[in-house]
């Protein structure tokens, strides 16, 4: 098996319009959650979210392009461009993959089209409604924009989409199927219809995202994208690339139990598979799924304790969702930036923890970032549907 490294990073998310500003915001413990500004927000019961503010599509795309791009695809393309510039790589088109995660795809396009025909009584929708809303639009536009002709597709596993996408890209390179890949996730569901649907489940917080806090009262939605360039380690070293991390493992499992309630067993099994033969003691940081719901945080902490035993008290665990919200299909991708930051010596915090829940008694890096040497990290993603995907990464050597 070949070894796989990350050599390019790109993002647009509530914390920043690119990687440097995002990392700075994470290091500062910035919270990007605010009042939702979508149309008819006054008719929502939940009026907070982590929006990407100040994003000017016209600054990135010309008019013909914009007609074809939903907001989620715009985020994906801008992130992919930054990742390619960062990696400074010349790709072999047919030996490169593009694998993107998303849950809602072009949800905003659907929202607008339904509004037009159902509410406004229009008899037609925009002619490009279908190519804009399709879930594979982001992956396809990246492949077209960069000229990648290898395996290109979308993974849709709700909150685990990005980790599944990045994990599959890792496996493709490790197995020799491709030499390099662009992988990540994109999401843009902060529209009236998107929030209304989530409201129904009664799991959204009206007050904020406070993972591991005794007063936590649910999750807060976010939007954005992150894309990474993955490549064969030997090739990266040969061309003198900057290596941010090595992906050392990927574990995926299914709870096979409940469509929304998480299971400790499934989460544990995914972490164990991601670790493989690596000693659990080498893990210094876990980027938790940490949604801020009552059920997730408690079960995730119990799963971490079960996997790591006594070492659970010697590792750091944080949920950056407290800062950028829950990006659903893009969550794992944006959170991977927090993992790379940790491997670079700064562990991102969990902000908003006023009173830590006794049932979440791990070092959750509450309040502000912490400088420390971390050799290995896990990034957890546990999705609705009971689908778990965990990435293991190591500091480059």
């Amino acid at each position, binding site marked *: 098996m070949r070894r796989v490294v990350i050599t390019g990073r790109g993002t647009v998310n509530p914390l920043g319009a690119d990687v440097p500003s995002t990392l700075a915001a994470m290091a500062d413990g910035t919270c990007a959650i605010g009042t939702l500004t979508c149309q008819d927000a006054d008719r929502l019961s939940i009026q907070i979210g982590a929006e990407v503010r100040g994003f000017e599509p016209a600054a990135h795309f010309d008019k013909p392009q914009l007609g074809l791009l939903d907001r989620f695809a715009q985020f994906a393309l801008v992130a992919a461009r930054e990742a390619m510039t960062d990696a400074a790589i010349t790709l072999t088109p047919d030996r490169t993959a593009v694998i993107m995660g998303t849950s809602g795809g072009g949800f905003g396009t659907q929202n607008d089209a339904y509004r037009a025909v159902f509410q406004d009584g229009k008899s037609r929708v925009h002619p490009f409604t279908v190519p804009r809303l399709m879930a594979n639009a982001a992956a396809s536009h990246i492949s077209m924009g960069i000229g990648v002709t290898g395996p290109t597709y979308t993974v849709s596993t709700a909150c685990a989409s990005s980790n599944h996408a990045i994990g599959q890209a890792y496996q493709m390179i490790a197995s020799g199927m491709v030499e390099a890949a662009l992988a990540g996730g994109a999401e843009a569901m902060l529209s009236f219809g998107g929030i209304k649907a989530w409201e*129904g489940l009664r799991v959204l917080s009206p007050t904020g995202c406070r993972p591991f806090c005794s007063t936590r009262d649910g999750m807060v939605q976010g939007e954005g994208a992150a894309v990474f360039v993955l490549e064969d380690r030997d090739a990266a070293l040969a061309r003198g690339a900057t290596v941010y991390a090595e992906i050392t493992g990927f574990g995926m499992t299914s709870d096979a139990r409940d469509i929304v309630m998480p299971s400790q067993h499934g989460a544990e099994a995914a972490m164990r598979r991601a670790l493989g033969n690596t000693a659990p003691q080498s893990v210094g940081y876990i980027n938790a799924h940490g949604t801020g719901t009552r059920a997730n945080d408690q079960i995730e902490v119990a799963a971490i304790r079960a996997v790591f035993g006594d070492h659970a008290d010697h590792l750091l665990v944080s949920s950056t969702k407290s800062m950028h919200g829950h990006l659903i299909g893009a969550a794992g991708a944006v959170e991977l930036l927090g993992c790379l930051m940790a491997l670079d010596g700064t562990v991102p915090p969990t902000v908003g923890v006023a009173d830590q829940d006794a049932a979440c008694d791990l070092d959750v890096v509450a309040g502000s970032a912490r400088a420390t040497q971390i050799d290995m990290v896990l990034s957890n993603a546990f999705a609705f549907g009971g689908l778990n995907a965990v990435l293991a990464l190591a500091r480059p050597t």
Partner: protein
Amino acid sequence: MANVDTTKTMIAILAEQAVLEPTDVALTDTLDALGIDSMGLVEVIFSIEEAFEISVPFNANAPEDSPFDISTVATMIAAVDQLRRAQG
């Protein structure tokens, strides 16, 4: 005393969710006794909001903090009555 319409409609909503006859739903029953789990409760609250055209304050992350008391069928009926008066 609970509004007669509220009681009748509430019993019907809970019976339908529990797949029981309305006559099998007692005012002292808990959701557990009716076999209604957390997902079933979310559907019950949706049905209540639709039937009475009210908004029920309820967060599944903190059910015990909710002003909507779900302890028994009777407390739910009382809570719905109160919401109907407040929002009617």
